[in-house]
């Protein structure tokens, strides 16, 4: 695990709770106390009403595949050994979209609209990535 060479997130004070939750294998997103909007990616102000009154909430981890691509050539040199791999956008049950990899699924079985569930991958001692697999 020490030789993980793919791009890693570098959390800041605003996003740290998201990555801390991921490390506990929990998916958390934000919600606006002023207007109720569910929010991802982590922000300091609501994407709809701009209120600086956001709280972290647990997300169900459930969603549907909104779109995907199967990378047949690496999109970054460090992904070369993973080809073919699935880059996907998931529409979370709570509404927001999130970028991820679909895992545990043969590329020819991937279908837009398929139900998926969060699947956590500890890529090194510090970082856990939030991936998704078929539900």
């Amino acid at each position: 695990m020490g030789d993980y060479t793919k791009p890693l997130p570098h959390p800041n004070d605003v996003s740290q709770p998201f990555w801390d939750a991921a490390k506990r294998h929990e998916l958390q997103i934000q919600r606006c106390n002023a207007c109720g909007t569910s929010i991802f990616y982590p922000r300091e102000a609501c994407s709809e009403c701009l209120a600086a009154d956001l709280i972290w909430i647990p997300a169900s981890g459930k969603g549907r595949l909104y779109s995907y691509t199967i990378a047949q050539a690496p999109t970054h040199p460090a992904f070369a050994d993973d080809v073919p791999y699935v880059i996907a956008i998931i529409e979370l049950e709570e509404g927001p979209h999130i970028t991820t990899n679909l895992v545990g699924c043969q590329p020819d079985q991937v279908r837009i609209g398929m139900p998926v569930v969060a699947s956590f991958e500890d890529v090194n001692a510090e970082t856990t990535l939030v991936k998704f697999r078929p539900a």
Partner: protein
Amino acid sequence: MSIKGKAAISGFAEMAPQKGAGDITPLGIIANMAREAIADAGLEKSDIDGLLTGWALSDYSVLWPSVVADYLQIRPAYFNQVELGGASAAGMVWRAAAAIEAGMCNTVLCVVGDRRARARQMPPFPSIEAEFDAPYGLIAANPGYALIAQRHKYEYGTTAEQMAKVAVDQRKSACQNPSALFGNKEIDIDDVLNSRMIVDPLHLLEIVSPCTGGGAFIVTGAERAKDGPHKPVVLLGAGEAGGHSSITHARSLTTSLVKPAAEAAFRMAEVSPQDMDFAQPYDCYTITVIVTLEDAGFCEKGDGGRFVADHDLSYAGDFPCNTHGGQLSFGQPGLAGGMSHVIEGARQLMGRGGGRQVRDAAIGYVNGNGGIMAEQCSLVLGV
């Protein structure tokens, strides 16, 4: 108040894209393009009192407009960098027109150049995308447009053959463009579909090739432009739209910001898409053309695949589209890739299309697109 009819493109210059880095710097390219465009418009360097430029990835720095002004030794009364990615050049046209109409300056040099080389100082990617997209391999443009194409196939039944047709027809025009990087040999749909799959559903021949190159054009007042050696290409309408950075957070993958941008441009020009003699839509990928033609109103939403299959998109066809070959065949020399659509629109309207001249071209549509469909600037140009 509108800038409709107030300013015109009076001259241009364009470097033939080169596959390698060459031995020229971005500033060297910019100087060559400036010299040639000024001469093409029948002007002297001292006539230039406005400057719009855009970044060069191979020589990225802050204060770039001043770097360019210093290198060219011009003293602009209006200058700036237009930072709309591939839409930058289209965005320069209306900004120049607006500055002229506002009385800030008379004649604007719009110029870009870039070198395909290991970046000396690559600009940082947006930090949010570095944190939430890059760890999953959603990096640079290829996978972003593949996500769009896959969703378009799902929503509208767009086929691989329809997407490939864009590359095939544009290549026909490229074979009449001596400057095109890939202008030697026509291709067919099988060639595209048999080329290497890069990010499913996009094949190698559906993806632009980065290269070295540059371009420039001159925008001046519509009256002043009549003193030049060429038919002035008048800006009749312009529209711009934005609202996302990462494609994951776009409001729609398949209905793009081209829609409001094009609607605004056609509204200002008081014409409709059906009045256009040609279209020069930004084409970083085949799917980009299909989505743009739909959202600009050349066909119904979702019918873009059938539209490109049913029409001959070549310069001699019933729907001339990217008559220089598009960036898919011309090449993508940084921001000069986006500029190639503006210059080709002006070239056709001036009647300087040579072997690929669209007969009786009098009005046309140009679109610039930046990022992953994130910046859109639509223009209606006419003579």
